[in-house]
């Protein structure tokens, strides 16, 4: 049985996470071999996931850690 594009899209996130069973993975792989659109959807989704995980996307405000630890010092002294 061949699966269609919509079926592939439903499983893209799980596919990226390696969270689909072997049978479904093989079906998706076979679909991807011939479907340019689904290949591009998969590659672009995976690319977005990789970029999001880069520490440069979310930056802490300058001095965040120093101010946080100053506040902790204040609490430690207050509580002693």
């Amino acid at each position: 049985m061949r699966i269609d594009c919509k079926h592939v899209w439903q499983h893209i996130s799980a596919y990226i996470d390696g969270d689909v069973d072997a049978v479904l993975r093989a079906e998706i792989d076979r679909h991807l071999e011939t479907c340019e659109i689904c290949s591009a959807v998969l590659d672009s989704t995976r690319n977005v996931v990789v970029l999001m995980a880069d520490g440069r996307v979310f930056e802490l405000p300058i001095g965040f850690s120093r101010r946080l630890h100053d506040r902790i010092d204040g609490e430690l002294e207050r509580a002693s």
Partner: protein
Amino acid sequence: MNAPNSERESEWIQRILAGEKYLFHDLIRGCERSIYILLFSLLKNEADAEDAAQETVIKVYQNLRHFRGDAQFRTWVLSIARNEGLGRLRKQGSRREESLDANTDEHTGDFTPAILTNWREIPSDALEQKELRDILLSAIQRLPEIYRNIVVLRDVEEMDIRETAAALGISEGAVKVRLHRARAMLQRELAPQLKAFAPKRKLFLWGRV
């Protein structure tokens, strides 16, 4: 992101509770980025997120003796951060409505991906450009809250499904459904914009050995 070492953490916690309180600085260091990012994703504002992060950390210290080793320390800390963030949203009132509106998994939306062909990978080096970072950040911020939280914990902080579920107090199945929808919405929104950041083909290299 380094996986927290839970044995070392529980040893530190015992020593802190026994009086070596300055070890708390080391204990919390491994969590502070996750705390801030989760709160920023809830409050959408640097100053509020920083203030709430400080409040969270003080609450963690004050409640340390209540921490039970059956959850990861970071998971416990993040659930405190989340409560702190939600409490602030409730006080702000109006901003809460947006999230309540989309607060169930029955929320229907268009999760059809952006259709394209010939995707050329955007290399991580492109993140040196502020413009690209801003595009990614604003796409996350435009997601409904229940999807935003998931993306931030799972894809930005790279927590596994189990820890994400525990920190947000939802089932692993709900994490997977929401993660799928969130990634689909992000792909739909971002793929057309990201194409501009694809490296140009270096034609002059072709044909050389």
